[in-house]
């Protein structure tokens, strides 16, 4: 099979998805360009499947971020506001920070829009599974849009073991099939106990 026809190729450990950017990608890219100036991140859940070809709608894009100090969050919040994002939880960074501090998600959408939104999911070291996936990112690239996702085997198992909804099982099946040539059985074995620890 010619590489130019394939859905993806691997270049230097980066998964290159061979397609054009969608409006959803451009929305995520714009948000990430701002976020990356202030914090490290990992894109998780539905967008991982959609970015790699799953055909379904989505309203939110989940992003893991390490819990951060108030000042750092305020700078991020103000930068997002100046770039036409608004926050569901409020207009005051200090008030919204209470959510971050308590490890509750906050959501941002484009001005005068509700969906799609970016859901920032803060975590700290007490969250073992989240800490693990965050520290083992995999790079993925679509045209000039590069971002970090969890290891594929981790993402699949998390959907199958923790989330388990209809949509999640479908996403997992898509990822298992689309990436069947590069996912590794030993990685599933390695990640399963880490993911199951989240159930305890």
């Amino acid at each position, binding site marked *: *099979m010619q590489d130019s026809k394939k*859905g993806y190729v691997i270049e230097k450990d980066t998964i290159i998805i061979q397609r054009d950017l969608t409006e959803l990608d451009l929305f995520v890219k714009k948000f990430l360009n701002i976020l990356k100036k202030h914090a490290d991140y990992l894109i998780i859940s539905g967008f991982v499947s959609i970015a790699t*070809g799953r*055909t379904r709608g989505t309203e939110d894009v989940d992003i893991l971020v390490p819990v951060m100090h108030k000042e750092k969050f305020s700078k991020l919040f103000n930068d997002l506001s100046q770039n036409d994002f608004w926050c*569901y939880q409020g207009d005051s960074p200090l008030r919204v920070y209470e959510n971050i501090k308590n490890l509750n998600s906050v959501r941002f959408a484009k001005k005068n829009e509700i969906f*799609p939104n970016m859901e920032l999911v803060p975590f700290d070291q007490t969250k073992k599974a989240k800490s693990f996936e965050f520290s083992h990112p995999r790079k993925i690239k679509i045209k000039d849009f590069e971002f970090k996702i969890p290891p594929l085997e981790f993402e699949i198992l998390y959907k199958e073991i923790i989330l388990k909804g209809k949509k999640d099982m*479908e996403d997992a099946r898509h990822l298992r099939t689309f990436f069947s040539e590069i996912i590794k059985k030993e990685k599933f074995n390695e990640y399963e106990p880490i993911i199951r620890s989240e159930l305890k």
Partner: protein
Amino acid sequence: MSLKTRLDYIEFYACKLKKDNSFFNQQKMLIESQLQSSSSLFKKMFVSQRNFKNNARKYLKGIGLI
């Protein structure tokens, strides 16, 4: 391949996509169509009103998102 369940179709489509990236064009159309419909609906609901954010937050509270 006999396609009986939704998961069978998902697997079938993922196999096609893996071998032929022209199938991404269909996916792009569907995703963008959903985004545009959603955007247009909520613009009609809230943008004409004076305070978009307050009204949007009322709606989001109503559906349990905040």
